C-alpha cells in the first residue's frame, strides 16, 4: 500500500486570551475590594485596642472549628479547580467534568458552613457595643460568600460550555479564566482566615 505524506497541518492560530485577561482584571478588582475592607478592619482594630477598649464585644466567641473547615474546603477546591484545568489541557473531558463538578460541590459546602458559622457567631449587628467589629465581620465574610457564589456561577457557565465541546487543549480560556477567579477568592479567604479568625 502506498503511503502519501500530506502537507503538514497549518499552525494553530495564536488566539488572544481575551477571557483570561478580563478575568485577571476582575480578580484584581475583587482582591482590592477585600483588601480595602481588611485594611479598615486592621486600622479600626488597632485604634480600638490602643484606646484600651475591647475589639471583640463581650460575650462574643469567634470559634475556630468552622473557619478551619472553610479553609480546608477551599484549599481542596483549589486542587479540584486546577485538576479541571489540567484535564481540559490534556483533552481529558471526563476528568474535566468530574473536577468541575467537585469544585462546585465544594463551593456549596463552603456556603453551607459559612451560613452555619453565622449562627454560631451570634453577633447582634444592631448593638452599639458590637460596633464596628460586627459590621466589618459581616461585610467581609458576607461579601466573600457573594464572591464565591459569583465564582460558582462562572465555573458552572464554563462547565456547560465545556460540556458543549467549546473547550479543548488548544482552547481552554474559559476554564483557565474561571480557575483564576476561583483561586483569587481562595487567596482572599486565606487573608480573611488569618486576620478575622486567627488573629481576630
Amino acid at each position, binding site marked *: 500500500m502506498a503511503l502519501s505524506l500530506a502537507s503538514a497541518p497549518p499552525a494553530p*492560530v495564536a*488566539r*488572544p*486570551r*481575551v*477571557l483570561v*485577561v*478580563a478575568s485577571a*482584571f*476582575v480578580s*484584581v*478588582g*475583587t482582591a*482590592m*475590594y*477585600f*483588601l*480595602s*475592607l481588611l*485594611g*479598615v478592619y486592621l*486600622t*479600626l482594630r488597632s485604634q480600638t485596642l490602643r484606646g484600651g477598649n475591647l475589639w471583640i464585644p463581650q460575650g462574643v466567641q469567634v470559634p475556630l472549628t468552622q473557619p478551619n473547615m472553610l479553609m480546608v474546603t477551599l484549599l481542596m477546591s483549589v486542587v479540584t479547580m486546577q485538576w479541571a484545568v489540567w484535564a481540559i489541557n490534556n483533552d481529558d473531558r471526563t476528568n474535566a467534568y468530574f473536577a468541575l463538578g467537585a469544585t462546585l460541590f465544594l463551593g456549596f459546602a463552603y456556603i453551607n458552613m459559612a451560613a452555619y458559622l453565622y449562627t454560631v457567631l451570634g453577633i447582634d*449587628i*444592631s*448593638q*452599639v457595643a*458590637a*460596633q*464596628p467589629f*460586627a*459590621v*466589618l465581620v*459581616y*461585610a467581609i465574610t458576607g*461579601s466573600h460568600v457573594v464572591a464565591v457564589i459569583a465564582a460558582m456561577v*462562572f465555573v458552572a*457557565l464554563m462547565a456547560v460550555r465545556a460540556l458543549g465541546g467549546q473547550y479543548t487543549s488548544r482552547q481552554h480560556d*474559559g476554564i483557565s479564566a474561571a480557575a483564576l477567579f476561583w483561586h483569587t477568592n481562595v487567596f482572599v479567604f486565606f487573608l480573611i482566615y488569618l486576620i478575622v479568625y486567627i488573629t481576630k
Partner: protein
Amino acid sequence: MALTDNSVVDALPAESESVPRELPTQAEPTGLAGVVGTADHKVIGRMWIAFSLIFGLATFVAATISAAGQLSGATFPGAQNEFQVFTIARIGMVFLFLVPLFIGIATVVCPLQVGARTVAFPRAAAAAFWAWLVGAVVLITAYASDGGIGGKLNPDGSVNKAIDLAFVGFGMVILAVLLASVCIATTIITLRPPGMDFFRVPLFSWSMVIATSAWVLTLPVVLGNLVLADLDYRSAAGATLGQQLVQWQQIAWVFGQPQIFAFAIPALGIMCELVATFSKARQPQRGALMGAIGAFGLFSLGAWAQAFFYNDLYNQIVFIALSIVLGLPILVLAGGWVTAVRQGALRPGGPFLLGVVSILMLLLGWVGAIAFVIKPFQLHGLSADTPRNLASFTKTLWTPTYPAAQVGLTGIVVLAATAAAFAALFYWSAKITGRSASQGWALLVTLVMLLATVMYGPPFIAFGFGNKSPDIDGSIDTISTISTIGAGLAAVAVVIVVLALLNGALSRKRAADDPWGSGQTLEWLTASPPRQGNFAHLDEVSSAEPVYDLRGDPSTETDEEAS
C-alpha cells in the same frame, strides 16, 4: 449570547494576511431595537458620550447652585439642602460625567486604534452602559427625594431620606464603570493586529490601559467604603461608619489628591495624539512617554490615602512626596511633545489648543497639590485663626477629610480633564458622528474652558488660605461669585460642545477617512463613520504610526497639497 461571549471572529484582530476569515453577515437591527440591543462599540460609545454630556450639564448646574449658595443672603439651595447639592455635584462631575465621557470616547476609538473589529465582550460593554444609566438615574432620584449620601441632621431632627437608594445607585455606577473598564483594557491588550506589540499601541489607547487599570485598582475600594457605611447605617446602631455626618467623609478621598488625578490619565494620551497629528511628525521617545503616562497612573493611585482612617495622613512623608512627584511625568511628556513639535510642522487647530489648555490646567492642579502639603500654608482645615464666617462653611460643606483646598483641586483637575475630553470629541468627531465638528466651535470652547477652570477651582483654594489670613472674611462674597461664574461657564461649555457636535452631525458633508490629513494611527484608515466590522482588511502593522508609513511624511507637503 452571554456576557462572557467573545466569538472567534470578534476575538481576533481585524483581518490580516496571516489570519483570514469571513466577515459576519447577520443583519444589524435598526431603530429602537438597534439602539437597545446593540453590541456595536460605536453605538455603545455614542450612548456613553450622549448621556454623560446630559449629566455633565446637570452636574455643572448643580455646582453653580452650590457655589452660589455660599453668597451671603443666598436662600437657595438653603441650609437644609446645601450639603446634598454639594455632594451630588462632586459625584456627578466624576462618575456621571468625566469618567463616562472618557469611557464613551474610548469605546468608540480604542478598538479602531488597535485594529479590532469590536470591543472585547460587546454584550458586557452594552450591559455596563445600561447599568451605569440605571445607577445614575437611581442616584439622582435618591437625591431628588431629599436623600443622598451623608449630610447633617435637619433642624427638625429628621434625617435625609433615601440614603440606601443613593448607596445602591452609586454602587451600580461604580460597578458599571469597572465593567466598562475591563472591556476597554481587554480590547487593547488582546485584540491588537499582528505586528502591533505593546510599544506600538497608540498613546491614547495606552493611556486608557493605564487609566482603566488605575480605576480597577481603586474603585473597588470606594465600593468597600459604601458597603461598610450602608451596612452600619442599616444596622440602626450606626456608631462608627454609618453616621450621616461621616458617610461623605469616608468616600471623599476619591475626590481629593492624589486619586482625583487618576481620572485625568486619558487627558495625557489625548494630548499625545493631538501633538502627533497637528505637528505632522512621528512622536520621538515613545518609550519615555509611555513610561511617563504609566508613572502618572502609579502616582495617582489614592486608595491608600484615606484621611478618614488616618488622621495624620496629610503630614505623612509618603503623601507629601507623592504630591510633589505627581506632576513630574507631565513635564516629561511636555518635553516629548515639544520635541515632536520642533521636528514637525505645527499647524495648531482647535482641538490642539483645547489640549494645551487641558495640560496647563493639569499643571495648575499639580501646583495646588504641592501647595496643599506645604505646612505653613495651613490648607488642611480649620485652625485657631480661621475666620468666623469661613469656619461656618467649613463646618457644613468642607470637612477635615475634604477641606476647601481639596474641593478646589477637584474643580481644577476635573475641568482640566474635561477640556481634554472635549478636545477628543472635536478631534475624533469624524469617527464618532461621521461628520467633522467645526474648528470655530472648538476655539470657543477653548476660551470658555480656560476661564471656567481658572475661575471655578482656585477660589476654593483661596478659601483654604483663609485659615492663615483672617482678612479673607471680607472677600467671601467676591470669591464665591468668581467660583459661581466659573461653574456656570463649565455648564456653558458643555452646551457649546453639544451644539457643535449636533451642528456637525446634521451637516450633509460627510467627513473624509482622515479629515486632518495627518492622522498616524489605524482609526484614520477606516471610513467615517466606520463600517460594520471597522476594517475590511489590515496588513501586518510594522510601526507605531502605520498610517504615517502609508502616506509618507505629511510635514513635507506643500500648503496646496495639504488643502
